[in-house]
């Protein structure tokens, strides 16, 4: 996703000199080409995220389209008030990019895990919150964010994520992508867990359960139509995110559903259960430890639906 982002941004920046990339002294090897090719559209703000963000707002208020770039929580939580007051309140054209969302930085530890960022960004007025599920979405999201006027938060993986979509999918901010049709339950997934969701859907299908899979790359504004369709057409909804269950995708979907006319019979948020990801290991290990690998997601779904026995022999509802 990181590569898809920076290559797309470079392509667009060659054509539009307003586009400026401001980094917080991170992105070794990633931003090098951008810096060398377009030095007048590049700034290294140093290890100073508050200034990076206030600076970006000032540049945006002077007509630039400014991307701030750092990893995990640094461009988000460290400078939260600058994002709120300087970028969002002024509706400034500031695009915040965080690399290594969720637990992508694995063994680097909790300081480098971004697991509350969606909830916190989503609470701010005027900002769009975008967490692509694969490199194709990341590329298309980058273009869409450049075209979108106003602040955006782009939450990306670290790199090496599998490509799931074909290159020319229809992508719009705020519109989810139905990756798999299904009529029994719906998996709503954001920020890189799409492949796990598809594996889960495959296994459920072997057990006679038809699972719809929605890639919700934009958490704000949420695709309310697709979520409400799922609530009407399938009996259970599960949200999947590498993020706290508090306030993120699961929070957004539950807020919508509680106010809706039709609610699913079963609803479960799958994510970190209001805890720090303090175990040590790589991203796959941590996903398994916190129930976000295929087996963990399946176990939660089975428990929620009250299915007993092995999954493959699970009765169809």
């Amino acid at each position: 996703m990181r590569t898809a982002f920076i290559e797309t941004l470079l392509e667009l920046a060659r054509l539009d000199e307003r586009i400026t990339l401001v980094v917080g002294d991170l992105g070794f090897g990633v931003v090098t080409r951008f810096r060398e090719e377009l030095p007048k559209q590049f700034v290294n703000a140093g290890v100073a995220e508050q200034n990076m963000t206030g600076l970006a707002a000032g540049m945006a208020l002077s007509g630039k389209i400014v991307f701030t770039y750092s990893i995990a929580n640094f461009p988000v939580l460290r400078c939260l008030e600058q994002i709120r007051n300087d970028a969002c309140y002024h509706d400034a054209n500031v695009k915040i990019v965080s690399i290594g969302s969720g637990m992508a930085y694995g063994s680097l530890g909790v300081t480098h895990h971004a697991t509350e960022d969606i909830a916190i960004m989503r609470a701010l007025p005027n900002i769009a919150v975008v967490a692509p599920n694969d490199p194709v979405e990341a590329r298309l999201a980058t273009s869409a964010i450049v075209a979108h006027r106003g602040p955006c938060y782009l939450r990306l993986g670290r790199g090496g994520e599998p490509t799931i979509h074909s290159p020319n999918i229809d992508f719009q901010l705020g519109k989810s992508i139905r990756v798999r049709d299904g009529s029994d339950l719906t998996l709503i997934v954001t920020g890189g867990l799409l492949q796990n969701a598809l594996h889960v859907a495959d296994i459920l299908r072997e057990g006679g359960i038809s699972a719809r899979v929605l890639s919700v790359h934009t958490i704000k504004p949420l695709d309310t139509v697709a979520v409400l369709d799922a609530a009407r057409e399938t009996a259970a909804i599960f949200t999947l995110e590498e993020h706290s269950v508090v306030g993120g995708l699961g929070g957004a979907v539950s807020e919508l559903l509680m106010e809706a006319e039709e609610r699913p019979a079963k609803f479960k948020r799958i994510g970190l259960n209001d805890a720090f990801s303090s175990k040590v290991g790589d991203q796959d290990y941590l996903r398994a430890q916190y129930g976000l690998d295929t087996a963990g997601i399946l176990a939660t779904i089975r428990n929620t639906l009250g299915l007993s026995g092995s999954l493959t022999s699970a009765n169809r509802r």
Partner: protein
Amino acid sequence: MKSNDGAENSALLNELAARIRYQTLMMVNRAKSSHVGTCFSMAEVLAVLYGSILRVDPQNPEWLKRDRFILSKGHGAAALYAVLAERGFFPLEWLETFYQNGSRLAGHVTHHYLPGVEVSTGSLGHGLSVATGMALAAKRDGETYRIMALLSDGECDEGSVWEPILFAPHHHLDNLIAIVDYNKIQSLGTVKEVMDLEPFADKWRAFGWSVREIDGHDVNEIQSTLALVPFEEGRPSCVIAHTVKGKGVSFMEDKLLWHYRTPQGEEFANALAELEGHA
């Protein structure tokens, strides 16, 4: 002839400062609000900026080539609104709505629906970064307008103030001017007691700024100093304006109490009498 012009000019600027104080007193009295002391300490600086230095057009507040001014000490909103109204950015009657339900004039500087306000502030330690971004954008676009930010002394406790202080000289932003209203009093005590800034000018110099220290109540000195920016090519300029909190009303001057106390009743009448005496 020239000296007469000079005298007339400083009389006009002092008159504008007096009007800022008068309007501010009326506003905070009506609103029963705080921060009259911080407004009074920067009255002359604001008067010189808006009366002489800033290239702005009240008839065209969005003019692209305008100088940008950011009041980073957003709690001094009343004085900024006063000078903007006095300069004709919006009607003077709007000042009467300060703090009131449905007003455009919030207690901290707000850009929403308010011509002439560049940036909303109120949380300290934001304005200089935004100003720095504007200065960098102007440089890269080959624009010649200047960006001026007015900070409070207490605000300089914020680490986020020192990030742009480090950044701006590194990027040779000589179109950026930081002015500090050094009135020596912050919320809970004197600056010396709470968090001593000294040697203050040396700190800015050590970070790479070109610094002048002035009497922040002497309109001639403020004007002649700001007329010289940038003090050095390739460096941002810092003006440390030595001021007196509550300046202009004898019983408010240099008093911590008047950071928060609101002038009401007899105190209001006495303050008004003193200001009218000066005007």
